[in-house]
């Protein structure tokens, strides 16, 4: 029997759809962890990136600090966090939040930076106060790029949450880590398929959110699958 047939059988086995060790529970754990980690990172990183971009000061510092964060391996953070926070959800959450912050800071900074200065002048000319201009003019214009950062972060988090299984937490990584330990190739393969599928769903969902966030007049310039705010390009432009 080929491994593909065995994987199909694995998915058809009702035992793999039930209880703590079943796919639905692992999937739900994975989604919860990814969602909360991305949300926390956004709450922490958005104000920093947006304000730095708005005032245009300390931009290089922000980008560089967050790029250093990007170089930190999640696995390292995970293992280092265990003696401090124990095993399970806490170290995984910390590592994932740390992973998600850099793209959000960078994109929100660059998005705000790239708002046309004439637009800002016009807002002032209309008599808007600074915070009104920030919220009603600059942020809506910058939102597609800001959302692209959240999208990048979210997809990375979904893929990396797999590592949480190393520190005794659940999620879809359980199938991969346990499969390795038990030399069960079928389980590893099935786990990898599930993670890949979830990452794709997350990508599409966040792309949808990004589209919704784009003010209607700007949507025309944005195709569904395009990524106007790819961080690597924008770092070059803005940093």
């Amino acid at each position, binding site marked *: 029997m080929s491994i593909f047939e065995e994987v199909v059988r694995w998915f058809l086995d009702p035992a793999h759809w039930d209880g703590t060790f079943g796919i639905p529970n692992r999937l739900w754990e994975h989604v*919860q962890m990814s969602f909360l980690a991305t*949300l926390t990172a956004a709450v922490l990183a958005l104000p920093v990136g947006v304000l730095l971009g708005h005032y245009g000061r300390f931009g290089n510092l922000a980008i560089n600090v967050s790029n250093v964060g990007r170089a930190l391996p999640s696995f390292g953070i995970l293992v280092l966090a*265990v003696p401090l926070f124990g095993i399970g959800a806490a170290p995984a959450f910390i590592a994932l939040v740390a992973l998600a912050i850099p793209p959000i800071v960078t994109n929100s900074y660059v998005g705000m930076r790239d708002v046309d200065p004439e637009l800002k002048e016009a807002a002032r000319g209309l008599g808007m106060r600074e915070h009104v201009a920030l919220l009603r003019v600059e942020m809506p214009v910058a939102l597609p790029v800001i959302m692209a950062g959240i999208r990048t972060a979210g997809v990375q988090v979904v893929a990396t949450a797999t590592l949480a299984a190393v*520190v*005794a937490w659940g999620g879809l990584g359980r199938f991969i880590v346990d499969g390795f330990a038990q030399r069960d190739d079928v389980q590893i393969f099935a786990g990898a398929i599930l993670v890949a599928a979830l990452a794709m769903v997350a990508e599409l969902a966040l792309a949808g959110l990004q589209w919704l966030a784009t003010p209607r007049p700007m949507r025309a310039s944005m195709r569904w699958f395009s990524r106007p705010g790819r961080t690597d390009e924008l770092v070059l432009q803005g940093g």
Partner: protein
Amino acid sequence: MRDWGFRAILSGVLGLSLLASACGSSGGGSPSAGSSGKPIASQMILGGPPECPTRPFCEKGLMDKYGLTFKDFKPLDAGGPLTKAALDRGDIQIGLLFSSDGSIAAKGYVVLNDDKHLQNADNVVPVGRSAALKSDAQTLLNQIDSKLNTSDLAGMNKSADIDKQDPAQIASDYLKKIGVSTSGGGSGKGKITVAGFNFSESSILAQIYGQALKGIGYDVSYKLNLGNREVVEPALEKGDIDLYPGYAATELEFINKAKGEATPDPAATVKLLNGYLQAKGLIALDPSAAQDQNAFAVTKETANKWHLVNLSDLAKNG
């Protein structure tokens, strides 16, 4: 320009976060203290490698042989830093370590006695090619084996893993301690290549064998950290190496393709092992008293709280 897109995001995020917070809180109850009249094991969380629940020498064996059912199992690593950190923090109450781990003594863990003999005899035993090991070499290695015990091994592992000493230095210190000379035996007795597995205990044992053999005049070279058994054993059969420190029960179950012949008796296990090795021109010498096998450890506080000495104590009510 309208900012309703922004508002849509905001309300979306808000709604989702409410949903997540409603479902996201999972209760992490701490182990109950004091007497509750339930078996002690059922109040403990076991930590071990992810394969532990299905392995006969791990959780499955504890259930089948001792009748122990734990409150939960946490998949961690095989006696590594995660398991120790989890034990220290109380995330688990009992963890799988290896009996010769130097940190057992250093951290004051209590290894529960395997009073129903679940574990097989994984005693250290030199495995080599009969042609390369002449009778004086065999006598010398057997003499070392007769002295080596688990606490020696744990002490040497602590020197390597915790004090970061060089395995070669640890080995020569040990040979000096047991009165085996590492020099002055002449030369020209032939070449012996000593190999070790990819962990520090194996490097130390290989150095002990190698330095002692050099002491009686063999020309010794080393292939340390060669790999796992799937690499080392075939290298011995091919003649690329001449000797390595093996573990009796694991060697037997490797060579007989896991027939389940190994027992807790080291001498009987090595006898069976030699039955397989002979045809390949290989030999296992006398097993030492030093064992490196699965050991279930608790912290001193846990041992005191429930008066734990043996694994079977975990079946009592506490």
